[in-house]
């Protein structure tokens, strides 16, 4: 009797939204832990393989060209427009309030410390990270990764190493070029909006920026380049179940990369600026 009542309660509970929400949360949590574990284990495998340098200079150059050259136009556009918007928003007001001498400094610090890196990161994730994830995911669902394994080649070493090395090297270059572009864009916008002279703007830039900002910017961009490529490759490698799986893996790579670089950005800000 008691058993029957318990069974009915269990059946009722399983039909409630509370239970369904709980199961959904449980599945998401499981998926999160599995993905985190996969990224960590593949990252470890990447580092283990580095001692034998399991790639070629040609592969690194191919990936670097894809990472740097292909992404530069969109990165420059995004970072450039962001700095123009910032300059347009603040230059007029600051000049009116007598703070014209600080516009360059404000734009440059924002660009070098935050906007240049994070906007470039977002652009790289959308353009390069997603393409890497979908490429590897397609290879996974079409058994190309299995073929690599059967041919006794480690797919992590063959596919990840050139991409991660290229991302880690090229990201600082892309960030430096786009931040410079942003600072120059800010100068043009400030001049057009408030009549601020280029000399006053750039004097303010030299006054406000210091080597510490630039060093942290480079360090941050190196870490962003590393995590974006690692996450994109690892999420691609998790793909299963055909075309739908490729889409899921690509979305996961983009979301995970976005969240990770924002968390990293917070950690960098906490360590280096407070």
């Amino acid at each position, binding site marked *: 009797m008691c058993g029957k009542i318990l069974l009915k309660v269990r059946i009722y509970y399983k039909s409630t939204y509370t239970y369904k929400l709980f199961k959904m949360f449980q599945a998401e949590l499981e998926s999160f832990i599995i993905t985190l574990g996969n990224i960590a284990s593949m990252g470890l495998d990447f580092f283990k393989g580095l001692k*034998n340098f*399991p790639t070629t200079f040609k592969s690194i150059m191919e990936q670097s060209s894809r990472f740097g050259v292909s992404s530069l136009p969109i990165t420059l556009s995004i970072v450039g427009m962001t700095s123009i918007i910032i300059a347009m928003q603040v230059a007029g007001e600051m000049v009116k309030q007598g703070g014209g001498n600080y516009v360059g400094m404000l734009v440059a610090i924002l660009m070098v410390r935050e906007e240049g890196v994070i906007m470039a990161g977002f652009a790289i994730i959308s353009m390069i990270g997603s393409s890497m994830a979908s*490429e590897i995911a397609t*290879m996974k669902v*079409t*058994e*190309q990764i*299995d*073929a*690599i*394994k*059967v*041919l*006794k*080649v*480690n797919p992590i070493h*063959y596919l990840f190493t050139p991409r991660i090395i290229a991302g880690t090297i090229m990201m600082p270059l892309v960030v430096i070029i786009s931040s410079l572009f942003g600072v120059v864009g800010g100068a043009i916008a400030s001049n057009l909006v408030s009549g601020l002279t280029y000399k006053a703007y750039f004097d303010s830039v030299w006054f406000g920026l210091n080597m510490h900002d630039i060093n942290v910017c480079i360090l941050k961009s190196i870490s962003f380049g590393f995590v974006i490529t690692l996450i994109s490759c690892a999420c691609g490698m998790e793909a299963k179940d055909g075309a739908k799986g490729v889409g899921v893996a690509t979305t996961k790579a983009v979301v995970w990369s976005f969240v990770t670089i924002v968390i990293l950005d917070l950690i960098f800000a906490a360590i280096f600026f407070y």
Partner: protein
Amino acid sequence: MGIEVKNLIKTFDKKVILDNISFKVDDGKILSIVGFSGSGKSTVLKLISGLLEKDSGEIITSGGDIAMVFQYSALFDSLNVFDNISFALQERKDLRGKYTKKELEKIVAEKLDMVGLAGIENKYPSELSGGMQKRVSFARAIVTEPKIILYDEPTAGLDPISSTLIEDYIVRLKNETNAASIVVTHQMSTIKRTADSVLMLYNGHAVFEGTPEDLLKAETPYTKQFVDASIEGPMKMNG
């Protein structure tokens, strides 16, 4: 010796996919594994090639490389035919740097010649027909001179003439490499034209083992249903 499989067991999520499967294939012989979809045929190949880990049982080989030809070729679409075929020679840790560019070109040309596709080194997989892609994947498989070659539904998706051509190449490669070969297939024509022996699986169990002639003559309900391609019989597609 080729390859010997003893008491192989594999489960996925508590579901038994292979239950105590045993067979042996000698060098220069072809075993055809047949059965309906989901009977565990491809799992056998994945276990032998190391793509999956067995739960228990033994896989004994005479050493040397194991090559696999995938159902849809699995050529690397970003690489041309030359790089696809020489992939293992260029990228494998123990072979990297062992061959000069000239030697690689010679080896690739030889292998392409063996599959009747000389001179297509610079083409990309997307420029080839399904049958040609399959033959390039044969050339890629034999580049390291393997002792065991596994074929996963080699004629799937091909027209009858291309299928016949592929079947001929399976026999030709067996003769030229003396490798022990295992061909997973659904098609009677492939069994008749290539196999020295046949193993039929159903629900992870071996329900027939013998020669292709025995398969055609056997009066068991499983073999009769398979040979007649009948939906009536002990084997259910969802079973």
